[in-house]
């Protein structure tokens, strides 16, 4: 079922109201974590050219601030905003209210508690040492309960849908909903609770990181893309079957990846990982073709702010393609001999997580929240500034890092280049990427300000009227809302 095929269902506003509280909690705290993450990322970035910057305190050393930034971003922002958008999509596309929406709200509270405890643990020196799974073990129960509550709400909403035929987005979002608990429990059990021996730790950590940063983010992000693009371009989704084949390809081949060719593991593992990664090319092309045919030519709706979500989503779709191809390239042995263990990997990762997933999430938030709250964002100009800051920031972050990675890799191939000279050669690129980090941090602050402003705009009059009704007329029931 295509979201543009029929006029707005009668229940749309009721659905939005049922999503209001969980979505506000999820997206507002996601934005807050995003600002925290980019503050830490900025500190880390500065340390590359001034290593003495904030070096005195243990909790601000690079090896703690860096995992704090990446965990706050991945768990605080990505998973949280992904869940929020997914819940709304499941409710809207299923033409049903959010089932037991208090479950999602409670889940969000637990989740944020877990991330908070975890990030403080990382800063205190309790990081696990496994990339993408840095939050210490004692944060896990809270995270797990938080996800379970939110996920159950999503699954129940999916189950009670009023519309039997499924739209493409529902496939992606529903698979993502189950993907995370499986990979997280495997990684948590085998790496932290009952650790496996030797390099198996690295193999599982790579498997988990790939499943989280590639498969989960792709599933959740593309679910939003396939809903928003037809909606915003006011055209039906073209080549629906291409989108569905992308779903199957990502499911089948996406999770066979992430193991670097240099890994001290049996040689078949990196080889298989390369094959799986290369096969995702087909998915990349299928998604891009489908999105391009739907929104490439079609003009967005008139009005600047109306157009804004589409700009975010288009940027995200482009970054998806570029990052996906960088990932494929970086997995092929002749290239990976140069790019492995250099800045090229982080560049690919940043482009995928920030350039694709975060940008799509921003677009979704700018589209969904005004509907859910029944109000417009307070500062339209700030939102437009956010788009320019974020897109310029991502480009300034990822492009110099990719260049630095190739440069570093090529220079390291020649043993006559002293290591310090190689490091120095990458410095100009690292300085540029600090600029990117700074622009992104400013953009994220603008995003948080707009979200907080919207929440204030919604709740302040209600609080004021509640206060006056309580003080003026004590006989009126306190819970009465306009």
């Amino acid at each position, binding site marked *: 079922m295509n979201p543009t095929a029929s006029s707005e269902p009668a229940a749309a506003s009721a659905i939005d109201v049922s999503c209001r509280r969980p979505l506000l909690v999820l997206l507002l705290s996601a934005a807050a974590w995003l600002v925290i993450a980019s503050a830490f990322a900025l500190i880390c970035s500065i340390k590359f050219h001034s290593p003495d910057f904030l070096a005195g305190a*243990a909790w601000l050393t690079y090896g703690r601030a860096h995992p704090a930034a990446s965990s706050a971003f991945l768990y605080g922002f990505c998973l949280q905003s992904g869940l929020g958008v997914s819940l709304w999509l499941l409710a809207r596309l299923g033409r049903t209210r959010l089932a037991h929406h208090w479950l999602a709200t409670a889940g969000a509270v637990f989740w944020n508690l877990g991330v908070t405890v975890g990030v403080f643990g990382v800063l205190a020196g309790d990081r696990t040492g496994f990339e993408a799974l840095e939050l210490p073990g004692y944060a896990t129960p809270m995270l797990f309960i938080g996800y379970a509550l939110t996920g159950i709400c999503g699954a129940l909403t999916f189950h009670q849908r009023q519309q039997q035929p499924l739209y493409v987005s529902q496939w992606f979002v529903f698979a993502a909903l189950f993907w995370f608990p499986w990979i997280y429990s495997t990684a948590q059990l085998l790496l932290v609770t009952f650790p496996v021996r030797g390099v198996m730790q690295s193999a599982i950590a790579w498997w988990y990181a790939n499943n989280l940063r590639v498969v989960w983010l792709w599933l959740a992000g593309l679910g939003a893309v396939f809903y928003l693009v037809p909606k915003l371009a006011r055209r039906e989704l073209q080549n629906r079957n291409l989108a569905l084949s992308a779903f199957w390809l990502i499911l089948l081949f996406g999770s066979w990846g992430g193991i670097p060719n240099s890994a001290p593991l049996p040689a078949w593992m990196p080889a298989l990982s390369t094959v799986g990664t290369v096969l995702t090319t087909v998915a990349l092309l299928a998604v891009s073709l489908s999105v391009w045919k739907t929104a490439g030519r079609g003009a967005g709706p008139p009005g600047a702010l109306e157009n804004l979500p589409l700009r975010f989503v288009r940027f995200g779709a482009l970054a998806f393609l570029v990052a996906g191809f960088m990932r494929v390239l970086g997995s092929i042995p002749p290239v990976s001999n140069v790019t492995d263990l250099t800045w090229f990997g982080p560049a690919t990762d940043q482009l995928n997580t920030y350039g694709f997933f975060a940008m799509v999430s921003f677009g979704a938030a700018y589209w969904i929240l005004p509907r859910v709250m029944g109000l417009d964002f307070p500062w339209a100009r700030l939102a437009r500034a956010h788009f320019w800051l974020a897109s310029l920031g991502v480009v300034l972050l990822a492009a110099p890092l990719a260049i630095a990675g190739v440069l570093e890799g090529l220079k390291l191939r020649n043993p006559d280049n002293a290591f310090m000279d190689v490091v120095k050669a990458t410095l100009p690129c690292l300085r540029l990427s600090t600029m990117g980090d700074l622009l992104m941090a400013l953009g994220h602050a603008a995003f948080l300000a707009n979200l907080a402003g919207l929440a204030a705009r919604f709740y302040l009059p209600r609080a004021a009227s509640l206060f006056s009704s309580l003080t003026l007329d004590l006989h009126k029931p306190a819970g009465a809302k306009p």
Partner: protein
Amino acid sequence: MNYGPLLFLAAFFALAGSWFGFVLTPQAQVGRLQTTNMLGGATLYPQARPGLARQGLEVYRANGCADCHSQQVRQSGTVCNAVLSETGTNLPAVLAALLKLKPALSEPDARQWLSTLPRPVLEGLKPAEADAAVKVLNGAGAKAAVWIVPVGPDLARGWGKRRNVARDFIFDYPVALGSQRIGPDLANLSARQPDAGWHLRHLYAPRLEVKDSAMPPYRFLFERRKVERSPSPDAMVLPPGLAPPPGHEIVPKPEALALVAYLLSLRAEAPLFEAPLSVAPGPPAVAPGPTAGATAGAAAGTTSTNTAPTNAPATP
């Protein structure tokens, strides 16, 4: 396909496939690796790191050293060298054989060449070529052998003698392979820089030891305190700009000593079946973990005697 349960099963089986491939199968293959004999000897490898070094790995993890330092030496392949170790008694025959193998050499040069043995006659050969060369030399009564030599940019840089293999890490938790080389690879750090004093000074003020280093200082691993009755033997010897005011001294905290013990236990050069290389006979060229770690603890106590880095590597 419009049914939730079917969609659920599809996702489940897709993920179960990759779980089977990348979690279960490798666990069966390398999940229970044990110590083994080194090639050409009865020494067991690897040995568990000593206690202090194991505590050091915790410091390494907590402060994210692996964010900037990999522990994965890569190798692009192996070549064979024909190595002459003894001339034997029939010197003219050996000279003739040598000149046949190295036509560029003149006879006086060849005599000179033979004075420092063992040394490779021909390098970078295929196994069959190396066998042929060795046959020529042995036929002349000399003692020659084929040496297996791993090659690659990392090895040429002096970061190790062979690639890292799964067995190098069986006793580590967490395994700190790292994903980036913002700093140099550390898999064989103790072979390059065995001086504990150097490591302590480098942790306290990296640019003291390595010019323009991008490493942040780790001064929170050190303690500045008043000198009590007599200065501590552990006190750091620092240049005027960094030295504490008179009456004070800077000593490494236990974490710093543990971290240095761990760094000095980093050495993975043993010749193994899965990563063969030839080592010179005589005193064992490979010191397994415990020896290095044990000396680390002892050496860490003698930092006051450190004056200048004696064997600082060219590319630390």
